[in-house]
């Protein structure tokens, strides 16, 4: 006779309600695990997917993700000439907010050398990579674009030729890959009125400094702001080249800062993502503690409701094991059922979250282990209460 199951069957409605309640709580804990991992996953996905041997950025800058870094585009030729460098490619990355299908949408544009350069989409889920110098794009699936669809960016339309899904910006926004010149144009392209205003300001400035009007007209085009800039140079090392040696050479002789992909990841984790990670980790721990406390209270209440029945059974001579089994079995059934409910909830809703919910078997196993431990601790409290119950409680007073 399984007393624990019989009790739960008699109170099935209450048991199911409790399981759903605690299950939702476990679902939230698992979701927080996923949010935490998702923030890290998305934060470094671009670095991991690009994964060059070295990232060359503006001197003393932690760019291109943790901090702004600006380099002249042609510096990649200089870097390519360094001994040990097999390939050096220009790379530009920046966030934008533009209308896509009539809806203002945030995304990140990545510009790279589409003709064999580094930094392009590492994996396509549909279509092909960019093969032409202009007006082609590879977009993240999250943007909801279809192959062949044209998106307006700046003054031109770009045709989506490929779709990807494994790279997001460090903020979790979808990315759009363009050729480097297209990305620079979208970044620096100004409307005609702005260009006219800027030219006029320059003309006034020059003429105030004794430059003739004719001379000023000639100089204006030269003094326009530089648009051939990039954020980083991506380096692929020659086989057998010493990564550290090449990095030191670039730093010492070309006056840039150089990072490996792992160092870029560390910069992200210790810099831009650090506070978000700590915030989520703290919340995750608090949530887990709250879940454990609630689970303990639920199991303790379940036990206390049966304390008179336990006293009767003890009076009738029930063994301690019989009492322990009653409490322990209910506790484990409750914990296990709730965890399964929580697991099912989060696995069936994760795609509805706006940002990546990255669920890992390790996190789930650890959470399950802790839930089980909490259930055992909770049942320990119930068992202690049950064992110290006096059989005399079953008798009335005289």
């Amino acid at each position, binding site marked *: 006779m399984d007393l624990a199951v019989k009790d739960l069957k008699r109170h099935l409605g209450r048991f199911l309600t409790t399981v759903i309640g605690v299950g939702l709580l476990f679902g939230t804990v698992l979701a927080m695990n996923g949010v935490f991992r998702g923030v890290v996953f998305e934060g470094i996905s671009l670095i991991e997917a690009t994964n060059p041997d070295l990232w060359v950025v503006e001197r003393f800058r932690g760019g291109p993700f943790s901090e702004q870094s600006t380099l002249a585009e042609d510096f990649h030729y200089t870097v390519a000439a360094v001994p040990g460098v097999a390939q050096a490619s220009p790379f530009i990355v920046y966030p934008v907010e533009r209308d896509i299908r009539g809806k203002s949408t945030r995304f990140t544009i990545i510009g790279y050398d589409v003709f064999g350069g580094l930094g392009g989409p590492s994996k396509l889920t549909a279509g092909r990579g960019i093969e032409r110098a202009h007006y082609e794009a590879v977009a993240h699936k999250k943007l909801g674009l279809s192959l062949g669809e044209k998106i307006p960016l700046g003054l031109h339309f770009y045709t989506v030729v490929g779709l990807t899904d494994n790279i997001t910006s460090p903020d979790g926004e979808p990315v759009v890959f363009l050729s480097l010149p297209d990305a620079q144009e979208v970044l620096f392209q100004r409307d005609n009125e702005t260009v006219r205003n800027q030219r006029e300001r320059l003309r006034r400035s020059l003429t105030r400094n004794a430059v003739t009007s004719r001379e000023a007209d000639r100089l204006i085009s030269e003094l326009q702001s530089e648009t051939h800039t990039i954020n980083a140079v991506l380096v692929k090392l020659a086989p057998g080249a010493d990564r550290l040696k090449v990095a030191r050479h670039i730093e010492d002789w070309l006056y840039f800062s150089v990072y490996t992909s792992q160092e870029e990841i560390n910069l992200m984790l210790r810099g831009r993502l650090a506070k978000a990670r700590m915030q989520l980790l703290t919340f995750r721990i608090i949530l887990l503690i709250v879940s454990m406390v609630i689970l303990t209270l639920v199991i303790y209440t379940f036990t206390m409701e049966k304390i008179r029945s336990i006293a009767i*059974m003890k009076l009738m001579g029930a063994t301690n094991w019989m009492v322990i089994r009653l409490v322990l079995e209910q506790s484990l059934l409750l914990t296990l059922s709730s965890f399964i409910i929580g697991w099912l909830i989060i696995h069936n809703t994760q795609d509805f979250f706006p940002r990546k919910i990255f669920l890992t078997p390790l996190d789930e196993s650890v959470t399950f282990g802790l839930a089980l431990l909490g259930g055992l601790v909770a049942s320990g409290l119930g068992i202690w209460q049950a064992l110290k119950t006096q059989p005399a409680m079953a008798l009335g007073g005289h």
Partner: protein
Amino acid sequence: MEALKITGLSKVFGSGRLEVRALEDISLSIAAGDLVALMGPSGSGKTTLLLCVSLILEPTAGTVIFDGDTIYRDGWTGFDVRRLRREKVGFIFQTSNLIPFLTARENVLLPQYMVGMKGEMAENRAEELLEYMEVADRADYLPALLSGGEQQRVSIARALANRPKLILADEPTASLDTIRGKKVMELLKKIARENQTAVITVTHDARMIEGFDSIYHLKDGRLNSEP
């Protein structure tokens, strides 16, 4: 044969100035099939005596001989009293005290399950007892769906499940009206006679003890008997 013999039993709670002598030099003897009533005002020590007799409370002094074995001698026991309780003692309570999440049948099966009796044999025994108590048609009902009298009859069936040597009934009629109360007492008499089970009943109601073999009165922890 004596089912229970108590000699010079005392129970003292606390010590020094806080000492309370709940029972003082109690001696009584109950034979198999005897029906004994235990009466007394509140605070007279009835519950304490019942707890000592039911092997829940250790007496401070005296001897308790149960079914031929000396269970307690001056506060010491070498027996697994819990095992003795589940194998040889049946309990009937003031209120039915059935396990609320078990059906009437399961409540009768529970003591058998505690002594390792399962399967068809246990089911047959439960059926037999429920029929004996005339509640077989309510076997699959939860206690909450039974009347007070039905609950008490199921409770008696449960007490009989393991063919106990001794039944302890703690105010078994307290929650019943006079007619149902008398019926329960008649049942207890029948059980004592037919099964040769010693029955000790605690009661306040003198009308319920007609035909009992012995009536003991407790006052301030001391026992007076009347035949």
